[in-house]
């Protein structure tokens, strides 16, 4: 077994799921939306990428197309969800993901139905080894991850992000201050879906195929573990969460070959995932890394009374 290739593969997976985790962090961590159908938008991005690359578009257009279509669906699903409570949104989006998977599974004309189709890699050099291919993917995935990270990080620390957090903490108070909560929620879902769409595209071009079986609710759940474990509303935290969950996943896969257990190891892995999430929720609901307090010049000035902001009498 090629150890280096294995490590590179792990790095690519961390990057792809890091993007999805960041997008969920934007929706759940900052905007307080329970998106239990993350996999739906991952799927839309993946299938859009596959279909667009089949008609011969270059990979960056396929990725952007996936992001756009995914964002449109994010907006559409947010329309009924806007007025909805957290639990209604969760049920609606979860169901949406299952229906989408059902559709791509039953409709053979979309992308091969249950059997899927092959997807050509984004960048393929002639005669490149697997290692070089993996390296190229590391570059591509981490470039996208960097952009997503910067977007979420800058948004979160902008007035816009502070409004989002305010709505998360107290919808009524935020609305009383004139913030349109429906608009912010819809935008968070749209942007988050676009990012998940990009990740879906990267995922299928890396694996060279697209199958309905790749988009089970387990994906959504894995991403939730990453966010909750790492620390909701902390972008570094969710990336840490993505690393830890993927490492645990790989570790369990390796350990499987060396351990003799009375129980099927892959079942055990899922059981441990479930137990882990319950333990995190019980004993460390803020995650490994906490949300950092809001820092603005005005706040600092107010705190130290340095008079940095003089706007007496409005």
């Amino acid at each position, binding site marked *: 077994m090629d150890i280096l290739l294995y490590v590179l593969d792990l790095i690519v997976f961390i990057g792809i799921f890091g993007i999805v985790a960041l997008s969920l962090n934007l929706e759940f961590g900052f905007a307080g939306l329970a998106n239990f159908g993350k996999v739906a938008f991952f799927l839309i991005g993946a299938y859009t990428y596959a279909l667009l690359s089949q008609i011969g578009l270059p990979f960056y257009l396929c990725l952007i197309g996936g992001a756009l279509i995914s964002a449109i669906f994010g907006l559409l699903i947010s329309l*009924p969800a806007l007025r909805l*409570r957290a639990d209604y949104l969760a049920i609606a989006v979860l169901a949406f993901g299952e229906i989408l998977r059902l559709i791509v599974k039953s409709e053979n004309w979309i992308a091969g139905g249950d059997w899927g189709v092959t997807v050509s890699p984004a960048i393929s050099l002639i005669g490149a080894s697997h290692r070089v291919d993996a390296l190229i993917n590391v570059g591509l995935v981490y470039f996208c991850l960097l952009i997503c990270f910067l977007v979420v990080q800058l948004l979160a620390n902008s007035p816009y992000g502070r409004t989002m957090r305010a709505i998360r903490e107290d919808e009524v108070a935020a609305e009383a201050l004139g913030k349109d909560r429906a608009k912010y929620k819809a935008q968070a879902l749209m942007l988050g879906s676009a990012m998940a769409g990009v990740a879906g595209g990267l995922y299928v071009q890396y694996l060279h195929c697209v199958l309905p079986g790749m988009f089970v609710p387990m994906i959504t759940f894995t991403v939730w573990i990453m966010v909750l474990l790492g620390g909701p509303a902390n972008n570094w935290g969710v990336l840490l969460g993505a690393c830890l969950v993927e490492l645990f996943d790989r570790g369990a896969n390796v350990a499987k070959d060396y351990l003799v257990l009375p129980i099927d190891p892959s079942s055990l892995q899922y059981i441990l995932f479930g137990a882990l999430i319950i333990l995190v929720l019980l004993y460390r609901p803020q995650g490994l890394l906490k949300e950092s307090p809001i820092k603005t010049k005005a706040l600092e000035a107010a705190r130290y009374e340095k008079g940095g902001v003089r706007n007496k009498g409005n």
Partner: protein
Amino acid sequence: MAVNWAQVLLNSVVTGSLYLIGAVGLTLTYGLSGFPNFAHAEFIALGAFVGYLVAEQLGLGLPGALIAAFLATGVVGFLCYRGIFQPLAKRGATIIHLMVASIAVGFILRHSIGAAWTWRPLYFTATWSAYDAGPLRVTGLWIWLIFTAVALAVIMHFVLTKTKIGKAIRATSSNPELALASGINVDRVIWITWFIGAGLAAIAGIFRGADTQIWPMTGWDIILPIFAVVILGGIGNFYGAIVAAFIIGLAENIGVVGLIALGLSTTYRIGIAFVILIITLIVKPQGLAMLFRRA
């Protein structure tokens, strides 16, 4: 193609009966604890497997299986509430945290079932004689299913309106603080509801399993229509759930006729429940609850 509408109607009653039995526990625990328990799907699956164990592996027959599955799954439901959801709620977990926890519980249960039994489909071997009545064809299992659902509706009606615990359930569901102030042991009311709700899910699992097949995703396969029943009927509303179960059953079976007529795959029947769910959420999120006094 001539459609046998009488048969469609009968099938709707059968489907609705199954959904009703499956949905009662979910709607009551949702109303009392204030969050949708996604692990309800795994209560259904667990019930089906316990039923399989008792009926097939131990050879004790279906009645024994129903009782054993009700009790065993009820205890699991009680333990989930006491061991996980109640402590979480006491620590101030939000509704989102509770939902995530319920999905986690679902994964633990589902994969434990898969590890304890198998991921391959299993079948109940008991065969059911089919009866023909005019244009209708009905199996013995269906008669039992409809009978169970009707009995459940009648018994639950009397429990909710006439008994102390039933009144306590309704009181706690509509106003927990007032119920507590009135001297109702709210904690006991909630855990009894979790016990009964999970037990009824198990009954639904056995009927579903005996009618088709069982595997660890048995519950997940029908959780979407069951959620549609809960939302359409109004969360925590038992009478709404009865009406909603038969509406969804009817819509699904008429929908299947429509799907065949349109030449689409009948696997989309689950999509019909989804459409009803979404429309309910957009138009009237409180569901049919306004038609009934709160129960």
